[in-house]
């Protein structure tokens, strides 16, 4: 008897949930009132928070960000996660989401080029350049996981090309994304971190830029996505993209150390 009652209640609850989901998921612009959902690489955490606020102020539309490693976000979008835009930290993961059919290929665009830096909360620990990482006094060196975080891959490439990988690898610890990597160094658990300039630039502590010729360019590419089964907001997504490329958007991105399309510092592709 009791079991039957519990089952009846459970079925009832599931029914209500299903109807509610059905309503919010039903096609033709039914996501009215919901924010624009942007999946963004972790290196954008500070810059895009600011870009988002400026966009909301100028357009009156709401935007919500999910920051994570580009690899994770791309995977989620390919599996149908409801994002309207993917702002990646490189180009290859964008190709993946387009190939999966979750995003719109002809909206692919380069919006910034990233840079990596050595960062430490204690400027006294900061070496003059990559070569200084040989110093055994740097007990733990944090990088983002090179397997799915583009900034981690760039860090690994730069270390390999300067012949430092063998020395650094035994001391390396890996953050799930570049923001967690930063946290390892901020909390003092890692002595130094190889992170995005865009995260280092506003924080107390010190950083040293890494020569960008040492790694594949971090060509940060974005693409408008279809929003999964709930349906996308392609027009608002495009408006956000236009805002990132507008002068107020570019001013914010420049402040966080990004190199921008069309500017002298960015070599032609």
């Amino acid at each position, binding site marked *: 008897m009791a079991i039957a009652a519990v089952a009846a209640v459970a079925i009832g609850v599931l029914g209500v949930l299903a109807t509610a989901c059905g309503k919010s998921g039903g096609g033709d612009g039914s996501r009215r009132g919901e924010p624009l959902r942007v999946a963004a690489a972790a290196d954008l955490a500070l810059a895009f928070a600011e870009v988002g606020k400026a966009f909301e102020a100028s357009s009156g539309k709401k935007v919500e960000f999910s920051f994570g490693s580009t690899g994770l976000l791309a995977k989620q979008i390919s599996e149908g996660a409801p994002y309207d835009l993917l702002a990646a930290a490189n180009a290859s993961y964008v190709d993946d989401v387009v190939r999966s059919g979750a995003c719109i290929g002809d909206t692919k665009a380069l919006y910034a080029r990233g840079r990596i830096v050595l960062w430490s909360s204690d400027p006294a620990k900061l070496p003059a350049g990559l070569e200084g990482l040989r110093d055994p006094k740097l007990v733990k060196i944090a990088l983002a996981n090179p397997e799915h975080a583009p900034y981690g891959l760039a860090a690994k490439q730069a270390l390999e090309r300067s012949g430092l990988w063998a020395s650094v690898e035994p001391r390396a610890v890996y953050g799930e994304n570049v923001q967690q990597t930063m946290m390892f160094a901020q*909390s003092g658990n890692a002595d130094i971190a190889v992170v995005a300039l865009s995260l280092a630039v506003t924080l107390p502590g010190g950083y040293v830029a890494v020569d960008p010729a040492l790694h594949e360019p971090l060509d940060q590419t974005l693409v408008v996505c279809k929003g999964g089964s709930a349906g996308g907001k392609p027009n608002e997504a495009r408006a956000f993209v236009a805002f990132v490329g507008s002068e107020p958007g570019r001013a914010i991105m420049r402040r966080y150390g990004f190199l921008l399309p069309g500017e002298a510092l960015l070599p032609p592709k």
Partner: protein
Amino acid sequence: MNGVDLRPLLLSFEVATLATILAAVIGITGAAILANFRFPGRDILDVLFTAPMVMPPTVLGYYVLVALGRNSVIGHAFEALTGSSIVFTLTGAVIAATIGAVPLVVKNVRAALEETDATLILAARTLGATRLRAFFSVQLPLATRGIVAALMLAFARAIGDFGVTLMVAGDIPGKTRTASLAIYSAIQGQREGEATTMVVVLTFLVLSLLYAVGKLTARRPR
């Protein structure tokens, strides 16, 4: 199967084994105190032992980073003594896995100890056994079945720890990248084959353990 890195699975076994031993020592001691003594603050101690079961892994991970991190007093002393930190090492991974396992040991062992026949313990005391002797030679052996079940549950929980490990262990391949971290990496890195192998092994292992626990606890004579 070829080309699949099995180190994470082996490492998970190592971490879970060490964590189970550690959880057994802490958990059985805790359970013995809770089951046999009445004292002010007993309920609070019980809450503290149980809390990791329901607390978000991020909260626990944060506590570990703050309490045992390289800038903490304990972390600093440990590093000065052993030359290696607690976080980002096997030690850190074991501690992360132990935290989740301890509540399972405390809860289940306490129940097993409380179910033992009190008259047998009293008989041992009247025959001149000290409280400690009575515990080790009468109460503990009587509760063996429940204790073994508790340790199997602890092992199953330890081998699957993800959240705390992700926060404190540093995801170092071959050193702290346990199977659950490796699965996470493999899925994000689009290496489904590798993820599937480890998922299947872990699922099979944990289901077998749960089955064994069920058998052990069900056949308890009344």
